[in-house]
């Protein structure tokens, strides 16, 4: 197998690709041949030692993998060789193969590519978690998404729309706002040209219920919500 290895906390270009023996699955584990590994900004922080959690060295980064099960360990009956699966291994994903607990993988539906499945985890996973576990977005509520044209922002618009919310997208250019409208936003605010607060109040008829910022969700209408009305998204 091939594996990206971080031997020291150093600039990104010190990462190396190494050849290692293929893993064989321990009892209860499956080996997945990786077809797509999600790459996130935080992975770059990990390898440079700039994140608050520092993995023991050496390590292979990569927390999101989609691929095919190629071997199963003793006692595994929930997964079979050939299954297309998604998992969130925390580390070890930047490799051709990864060994994982069988209970940690979920099947990938037929219509979804490996890339789409792996790419869903951080953006959509974060927003689904935030909208359903950290605060409760319900049908008809107004959700204001700041930075709505980016990856997380578009996922927020898509998930909030799915939950039945009415979404106001705020972004810095007409192109980003058009992407947010395509993802389901009902109204837009170009905060390069418009007053964010005044327009949000006007569009929602008095004030929005939930605000999605880059790192927190605020629920102005629910100051007694878990986390005191603010919900960290990661």
């Amino acid at each position, binding site marked *: 197998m091939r594996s990206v290895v971080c031997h020291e906390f150093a600039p990104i270009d010190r990462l190396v690709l190494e050849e290692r023996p293929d893993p064989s699955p321990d009892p209860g584990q499956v080996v997945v041949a990786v077809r797509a590994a999600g790459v996130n900004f935080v992975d770059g922080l990990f390898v440079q030692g700039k994140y608050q959690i520092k993995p023991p060295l050496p390590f292979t980064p990569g927390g999101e993998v989609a691929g095919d099960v190629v071997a199963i360990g003793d006692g595994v009956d929930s997964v079979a060789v050939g299954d297309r699966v998604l998992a969130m291994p925390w580390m070890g994903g930047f490799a051709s193969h990864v060994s994982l607990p069988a209970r940690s993988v979920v099947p*990938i539906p037929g219509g979804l590519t490996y890339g789409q499945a792996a790419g869903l985890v951080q953006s959509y996973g974060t927003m689904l978690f935030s909208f359903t576990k950290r605060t409760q977005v319900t049908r008809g509520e107004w959700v204001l998404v700041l930075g709505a044209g980016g990856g997380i922002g578009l996922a927020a618009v898509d998930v909030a729309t799915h939950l039945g919310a009415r979404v106001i997208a705020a972004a810095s250019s007409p192109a980003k706002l058009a992407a947010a409208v395509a993802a389901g936003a009902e109204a837009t605010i170009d905060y390069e040209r418009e007053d964010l607060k005044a327009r949000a109040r006007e569009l929602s008829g008095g004030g929005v219920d939930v605000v999605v910022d880059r790192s927190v969700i605020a629920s102005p209408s629910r100051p007694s919500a878990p986390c005191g009305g603010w919900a960290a998204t990661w």
Partner: protein
Amino acid sequence: VDGRDPEGNQALLAELMRLAGDGSLHPVEPTEYGLDDVVGALTDLQDRKVGGKVVLVP
């Protein structure tokens, strides 16, 4: 979304796959890099040269 709640994480992944599979959610195709171009992928992300999602394809 982290390593502290494996059961919760797996349930969340399963729900994501269900919603994406039945068309309730609309994920975009990511930008692909080879496994041997991990430095390029991480550098482009850091420098904001690539938008949306990025994946490595071994």
